[in-house]
């Protein structure tokens, strides 16, 4: 009996132990296998702290590395109205705290109080946004428990309006204008995420940090612009525009050897730090986006085309009275009465429309169109600026009899200032057009450079044709009516003026003109080409901006330390 009871007892115990082990095993499997993921996630949620690590948007710098746009850290000061109002003696504490904050941020304490009282149940309201580090630290030092801070990435443009038209700006929805917008692929950064586990006191547990995504910084965008020249030209153009009462004014300085833009200025323009105060039309770059009928500055390109085709020479003679009736094209007139027996050079110095029209008949319209297209008209430049215009150059087959002539002196076609600068660069560069370049490259943190601009030039006219044209343009600088305003002592330069009518609905406006001067220096071996243009609501002539052109050209020569000319200017016959 004894042994039997003992056996029963043992069996019972074994069963109980077995059941208990079974329960534990089931539970173990449940926790470790079945619900493992869920539980792990839950526990990690309690310990894990996700951290967004910000990448830094790249800088925009000028050709020499001067920073035009930079990323900066800014802070938003936020408040929890609910938490603040839940305190004892809330109104007194809040009023005191807000008064101390307002003293730092230079705000009105009543405005801040209104923010809190607007929605007492809210946990998040902005007291102020985008304050600098000094302000953030001062407010942080006040140690107000219901005030919180948020880091935000801001953008600073240390040089203000200098190249503001080109650099563009960033709005609340990201890049809005200029190269900030078009070169976003270079500049943009991506934010990273890392997760670490924290202990009870909030200190991260060593070795627990896991980076799930690395942040990447943007590249440094190097422009071809020279900041100081850009500033000087901008100031000079603004002054000229105010004296002329111009509605807009642009200036472009382009390096002849490679088509790099040294300065592209617009009036009016935008301070990217303060976009709200700028007029809508000032937000972009008129020099790229707004084409105009260039007028007589096209005549030198016509001359170069005809010289290249071999149908004229510098001393080709033409009889060019004040007005001529061309068959089927109506009457074409000059701006002034002047000498009638002109050479090709003389036709440029006198800027004779009738002479240019007469010479144009020596070459077929298709060929003349192709030359103009070769100079870059009717095509976007290689820059691809935000909102850039290609201008208008209709195919020769669509030219009517009158357009056939007017297009050769810059009416009936449109071009942007940058296109004009590119065409003059072509003449200055011995007939080879270089790709227009604004962005020198995108430099990445690892040292690689992308977006390297093309450097392949295309020949538009022969070297001889280009050289002879520049020689004739030098006669404009030495012999035209505006010559006294076009002297840079010691330097030879070549230039052509233009006073263009502005097309409006149903014809040309009576009291609107586009004044321009375009040229290159030094004339014997051009290094820089300059185009200045102003839109004026008045009946004035291009001579009014001759001195502006001279000053911009002189400053360009000074900035880039171009040595003075050593050979005398040519003296070509202008009349016969």
């Amino acid at each position, binding site marked *: 009996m004894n042994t039997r009871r003992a056996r029963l007892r043992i069996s019972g115990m074994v069963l109980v132990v077995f059941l208990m082990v079974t329960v534990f095993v089931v539970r173990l499997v449940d926790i470790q296998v079945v619900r493992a993921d869920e539980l792990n996630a839950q526990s990690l949620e309690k310990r894990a702290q996700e951290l967004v690590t910000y990448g830094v948007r790249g800088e925009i710098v000028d050709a020499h590395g001067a920073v035009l746009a930079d990323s900066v*850290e800014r802070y938003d000061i936020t408040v929890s109205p609910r938490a603040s109002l839940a305190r004892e003696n809330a109104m007194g504490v809040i009023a005191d705290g807000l008064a101390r904050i307002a003293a730092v941020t230079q705000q009105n304490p009543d405005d801040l109080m209104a923010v809190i009282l607007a929605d007492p149940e809210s946990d998040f309201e902005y007291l102020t946004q985008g304050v600098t580090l000094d302000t953030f630290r001062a407010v942080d030092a006040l140690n107000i428990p219901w005030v919180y801070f948020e880091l935000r990435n801001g953008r600073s443009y*240390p040089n203000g309006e200098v190249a503001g038209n080109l650099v563009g700006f960033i709005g609340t929805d990201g890049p809005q204008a200029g190269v900030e917008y078009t070169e976003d692929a270079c500049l943009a950064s991506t934010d990273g995420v890392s997760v670490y586990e924290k202990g009870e006191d909030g200190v991260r547990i060593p070795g627990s940090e896991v980076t799930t995504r690395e942040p990447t910084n943007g590249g440094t965008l190097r422009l071809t612009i020279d900041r100081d020249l850009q500033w000087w030209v901008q100031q000079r153009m603004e002054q000229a525009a105010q004296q002329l009462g111009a509605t807009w004014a642009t200036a472009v300085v382009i390096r002849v050897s490679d088509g790099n833009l040294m300065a592209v200025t617009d009036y009016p323009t935008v301070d990217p730090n*303060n976009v709200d105060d700028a007029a809508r039309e000032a937000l972009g770059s008129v020099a790229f986006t707004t084409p105009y009928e260039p007028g007589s500055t096209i005549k030198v390109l016509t001359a170069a085309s005809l010289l290249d085709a071999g149908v004229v020479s510098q001393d080709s003679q033409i009889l060019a009275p004040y007005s001529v009736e061309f068959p089927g094209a109506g009457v074409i007139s000059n701006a002034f009465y002047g000498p009638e027996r002109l050479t090709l050079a003389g036709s440029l110095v006198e800027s004779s429309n009738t002479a240019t029209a007469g010479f144009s008949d020596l070459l077929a319209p298709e060929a003349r169109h192709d030359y103009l297209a070769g100079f870059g008209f009717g095509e976007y430049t290689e820059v691809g600026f935000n909102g850039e215009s290609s201008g208008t150059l209709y195919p020769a087959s669509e030219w009517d009899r009158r357009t056939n002539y007017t297009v050769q002196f810059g009416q009936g076609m449109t071009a942007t200032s940058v296109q004009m600068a590119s065409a003059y660069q072509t003449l200055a560069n011995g007939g080879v057009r270089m790709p227009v370049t604004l962005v020198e490259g995108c430099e990445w943190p690892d040292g690689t450079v992308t977006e390297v601009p093309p450097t392949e030039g295309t020949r538009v006219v022969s070297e001889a044709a280009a050289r002879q044209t520049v020689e004739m343009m030098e006669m404009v600088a030495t012999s035209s009516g505006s010559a006294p305003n076009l002297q840079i002592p010691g330097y030879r330069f070549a230039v052509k003026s233009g006073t263009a009518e502005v097309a409006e609905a149903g014809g040309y406006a009576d009291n609107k003109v586009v004044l321009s001067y375009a040229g290159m220096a030094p004339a014997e071996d051009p290094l820089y080409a300059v185009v200045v243009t102003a839109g004026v609501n008045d009946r004035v002539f291009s001579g009014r901006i001759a001195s502006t052109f001279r000053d911009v050209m*002189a400053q360009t020569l000074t900035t880039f330390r171009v040595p003075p000319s050593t050979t005398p200017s040519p003296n070509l016959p202008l009349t016969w």
Partner: protein
Amino acid sequence: MSANFAYANPADARPLRYEPSRDANGQRDPHQGAARSRPTRVEIVTTRAQRNARPKLAYSVVTIVSLFVIFAAQLLLSIVVSDGAYQLSGLQVQQKELLRTEQALLEQLQVLGSTQHLAANAAHLGMVPGSNPLYLDLATGAVSSAPGTADPLGCGGGCSMVANSLLNGVPLVDAASVAAQTAAVAPSSAQPAAVQAPAAQSVPSANPDVLPAPLTN
């Protein structure tokens, strides 16, 4: 089989040790008389060497102590590591703050170095654009003039026509304070020269109030 155990082989005619069941006096156990007819009984016994090799108390003490030492070392190590974590975290915060300060100062520097600020300060101090710089050609020795900077407004860089809203409220340098700073620096830098040549009184010494500069207009 391990050789740690001595054993007697029943087949062996001469076992290592054969002990018929005897009592302490060598008398045969009378109760066991019946067993004599059974096959020889073989018993596993230990050799002296094996007896000597038995675990001793010292071993267990050593083991337990070293376990405790290991645990203690691990504890200390983890204390040091987590202490390092606090230090690391403190230094990281400090590094972040310093980086922020650096960024803020860099930002300030860039604004102060902007063309507008430099030009306005230059004009404020009475500087004018160089109107007729000259070039000296080192090869020929010829001197030629460069166009220089036109100043049609007559204000040099002081016109501030090209706006920069970041400069709002940034003061221009104060000419008087610059002169004072120059004066404060000049004597100390002139000191060594004065010590070396105390007799050269007749030589015009550097006047701290006048910067050496050519007279231009």
